[in-house]
């Protein structure tokens, strides 16, 4: 059951009223008309909402929320009121009748306006904390002396995740105990935020998430509506649920920030990289720091003596951006892998050969060995599958049914993240097994693969095992983000099942009473001695209408190596989903702001484009079934949720260049950019 659908008696429906202004102070909220409508229970506003016991800004290191605790409007579409009624339709209508008066304040959503105030910011994500800037060698001298150089700025636009299931939260209070059904990627983070907001011990808050209709990063945080649902339920003394409407998905719950990335790249006459500088600037809000770590990829991807990477943030009057499928690696690989293609072209070297010439045998930044790296094999497998040898190297007119045809490729990579996780395994006297872990399944197939892992570890048939997840009463597991779930939870499930197996063996087989065992895993010290990544190679073929500029990706082949693949069918879907998103990133996705209003105008799925079926012709992921890796985590698994999108946009942009001779450095590649 999805979070919004839990049957709870006496439920009330909340619909958010959001701001039209991008910045200002709310002076009044007129809810008289709304409150007169049948079925309307209340309209909560900054003027009548209860004060949160935990303070106006419950800070848990998660995103900063706007929950009716003050009169400030900080971005367009920010929640400013909540209409509550006995049916969804009545609440929706009431919300439309609420009139908000506000004193406007000056603002900007234009990156160019704030570049002067760009500031460095450290990187914090699933892989840990890294410095904003890093310098190795002497980039400046190497660039100055280089014979072959590329220097260019690459841009990626703001994008919005738009999972099919919009964010939804259902809150039920029982005395000072709160139960929340939330569409989230991380139930423990939601518990922490709510416990803080309402000044409760975490044990008083239970968060349940059984199914999620897509997450992609935007459901990785407890956003404003989560706290507002609990606040409304508390204040009104009845359960309340809130689902965001599609237009409300644009701003309140994050998106991929806009980036500007300058790359300076130099090689000697033999095609060896001698300098690489990657300077990334990304946008965040005025009130919270999210950094898109786009230059990280340049620290690990290629062998090069002189490397400099920088990360800068600029503040705009927008909702805070957040993790969006392969945050950093997808946007960063577009810039780096486009630049590599540009330099290969300038040198007259085949793009695959150029990458092989600069293959990193050890991590170039830290000098550590890779726990495993099969990128060379990915280049081979991908090139063979794609028929790369048949490629025409120079961009020139190659016509097929009146269309220009081009091919391009790029390297894919993503860190192999692994964090602390735990699980409980229990066998009943009838031989059936229940395994529990407080993970979530955001569509990747966690239920299925964890049951598989448990069955294999215990040596029992798959049909005897049930895996359950999504409840903070269960053993703690990480947020499903940064491709961590499969690696971490599978390792925990294995640990629990091994412990159970030992108990059972000691008892001599099937138990007379239920027997259970707990398993907990955490990254080892040994792991820190290694560089840990999955790798892949993307190959794209495009057709471009020479007069009208329309691009179609006719083939996208991705070859990946990501540790032990737990389930080939589900893995294929994960890779494919990432690659399809790569098509969207390359050609379609763009949250367009009206700069004068400070408002995103592509507010539905007709205006915010993702690939349609017709845009997805042949998407062909292949992968190495078992890339042996005993270091990365006990299960030998590298997460695959994100690597599929990395490199895809660059491969497509490179193919467009090969077809047309035009280098598009600002995504998305729409027809107007090719006229």
């Amino acid at each position, binding site marked *: 059951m999805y979070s919004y659908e839990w049957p709870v008696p006496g439920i009330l429906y909340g619909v958010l009223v959001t701001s*039209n202004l991008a910045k200002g102070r709310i002076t009044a909220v007129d809810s008289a008309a709304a409150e007169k409508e049948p079925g309307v229970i209340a309209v909560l506003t900054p003027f009548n909402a209860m004060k949160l016991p935990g303070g106006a800004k419950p800070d848990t290191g998660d995103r900063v929320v706007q929950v009716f605790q003050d009169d400030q409007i900080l971005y367009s579409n920010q929640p400013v009121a909540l209409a509550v009624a006995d049916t969804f339709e009545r609440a929706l209508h009431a919300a439309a009748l609420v009139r908000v008066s506000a004193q406007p304040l000056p603002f900007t959503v234009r990156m160019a306006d704030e570049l002067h105030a760009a500031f460095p910011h450290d990187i914090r994500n699933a892989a840990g904390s890294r410095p904003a800037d890093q310098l190795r060698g002497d980039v400046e001298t190497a660039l100055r002396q280089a014979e072959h150089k590329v220097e260019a700025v690459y841009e990626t636009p703001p994008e919005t995740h738009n999972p099919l299931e919009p964010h939804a939260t259902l809150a039920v209070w029982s005395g000072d105990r709160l139960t929340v059904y939330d569409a989230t990627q991380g139930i423990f983070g939601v518990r922490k935020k709510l416990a803080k907001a309402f000044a409760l011990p975490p044990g008083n808050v239970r968060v349940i998430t059984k199914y999620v209709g897509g997450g992609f990063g935007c459901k990785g945080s407890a956003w404003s509506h989560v706290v507002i649902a609990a606040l409304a339920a508390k204040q009104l003394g009845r359960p309340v649920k809130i689902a965001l409407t599609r237009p409300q998905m644009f701003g309140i719950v994050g998106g991929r920030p806009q980036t500007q990335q300058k790359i300076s790249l130099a090689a000697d006459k033999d095609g060896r990289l001698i300098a690489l500088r990657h300077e990334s600037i990304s946008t965040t809000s005025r009130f919270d720091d999210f950094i898109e770590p786009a230059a990280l990829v340049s620290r690990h991807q290629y062998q090069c003596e002189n490397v400099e990477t920088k990360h800068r943030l600029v503040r705009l009057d927008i909702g805070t951006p957040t993790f969006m499928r392969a945050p950093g690696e997808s946007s960063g690989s577009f810039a780096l892998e486009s630049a590599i293609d540009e330099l290969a072209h300038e040198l007259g070297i085949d793009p695959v050969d150029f990458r092989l010439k600069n293959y990193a045998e050890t991590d170039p930044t830290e000098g550590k060995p890779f726990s495993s790296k099969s990128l060379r094999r990915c280049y081979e497998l991908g090139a063979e599958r794609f028929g790369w040898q048949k490629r025409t190297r120079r961009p020139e007119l190659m016509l097929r049914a009146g269309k220009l045809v081009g091919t391009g490729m790029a390297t894919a990579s993503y860190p192999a993240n692994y964090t602390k996780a735990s699980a409980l395994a229990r066998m009943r006297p009838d031989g059936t097994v229940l395994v529990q872990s407080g993970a979530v399944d955001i569509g990747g197939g966690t239920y299925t693969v964890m049951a598989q892992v448990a069955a294999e570890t215990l040596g029992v048939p798959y049909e005897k095992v049930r895996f359950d997840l999504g409840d903070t009463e269960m053993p703690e597991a990480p947020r499903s983000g940064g491709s961590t779930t499969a690696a971490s939870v599978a390792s925990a499930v294995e640990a629990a099942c091994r412990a159970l197996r030992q108990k059972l063996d000691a008892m001599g087989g099937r138990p007379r009473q239920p027997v259970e065992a707990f398993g907990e895993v955490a990254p080892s010290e040994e792991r820190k001695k290694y560089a840990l990544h999955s790798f892949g190679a993307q190959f794209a073929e495009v057709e471009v209408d020479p007069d*009208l500029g329309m691009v179609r990706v006719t083939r996208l082949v991705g070859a990946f190596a990501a540790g032990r693949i737990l389930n080939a069918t589900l893995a294929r879907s994960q890779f494919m989903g990432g690659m399809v998103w790569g098509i969207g990133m390359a050609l379609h996705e763009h949250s367009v*702001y009206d700069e*004068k209003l400070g*408002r995103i105008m592509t507010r539905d799925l007709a205006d915010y484009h993702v690939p349609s079926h017709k845009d997805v012709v042949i998407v062909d992921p292949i992968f190495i079934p078992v890339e042996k890796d005993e270091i990365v985590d006990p299960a030998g698994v590298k997460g695959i949720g994100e690597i599929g999108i990395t490199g895809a946009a660059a491969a497509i942009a490179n193919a467009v260049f090969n077809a047309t001779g035009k280098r598009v450095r600002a995504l998305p590649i729409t027809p107007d950019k090719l006229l």
Partner: protein
Amino acid sequence: MRLFTFQRAASVDEAIASGAGAAFLAGGTNLVDLMKIEVLNPERVLDVSRLDLAKIELREGALQIGALASNTAVAEHGDVRRAAPGLSEALLSGASPQLRNAATVGGNLLQRTRCAYYRDLGTRCNKREAGSGCDALDGWTRMHAILGVSDKCIAAHPSDMCVALYALDATVRVRGPAGEREIPIGELHLLPGDHPEREFSLQPAELITGVRVPIDALAARSRYVKVRDRQSYAFALASCAAAVQVEGGAVQAARFALGGVGTKPWRVPEAERSMQGRPATRETFARAAEIALRGATPRRDNAFKVELAKRTAVRGLMLSAGALS
């Protein structure tokens, strides 16, 4: 969505008799969508979807298409595909199969703009609320019109079907309290001028009953070309319905209309006449396209449409003339 009264008409006469002040509901793909986001708020909705107006036939030298024929039914109809292939192509280039199955010809004739400001109650829109102002003028204009615009409205006409019907010289049959009349399709849609809230030349309670598409050798050569940001389910950046008849290498007759660039489907008789008797070549077509785009008023984000529309027109004319495969 607001409260409204729902009624169902049992006959065309009944629909007309109680049609004043009501919104006619056919496929609902546009009306219901706009009601849900409270852009259109009729107090009364009169369901005409079950009236006997769905027939498609070739009669008296014309395709007679009932107002309630679905987009799919028209697009897939053998006579339409043979006699006016451009109409079929235009319909199939629009929306999605699910929407085309529900959407009707009558509804498509009255399809509202997809201007993002029109659909966003948090912005000002003269079309949605007369005299309230227009935030699109100096806003995000990439999808907006460059022809037929005014300083009150630059919303692009969204329909693909209408573009083909313009090129095919269709007429629209309507019935109202004053009886039946035929409207040349070019006169159905109004330019925004000072009153963008007035969109159609229909009188109160007038119901579109059908469309007549004259069939001749030219119509049989009609084609439709659409340029958009993705391969399917996207509105036109520019489109062209074109019909060219060539004899001995020279243009005998030619008509074309442009979509995605005008506040209504855009036809320029002078551009069509310019091709008369000229060789059916890219140069001839490019000159016609040049004339058609005269007076274009691009804004910050849609300047590319001037060139794109010309190229789209040339492509359409070339296709129809058989100068391309």
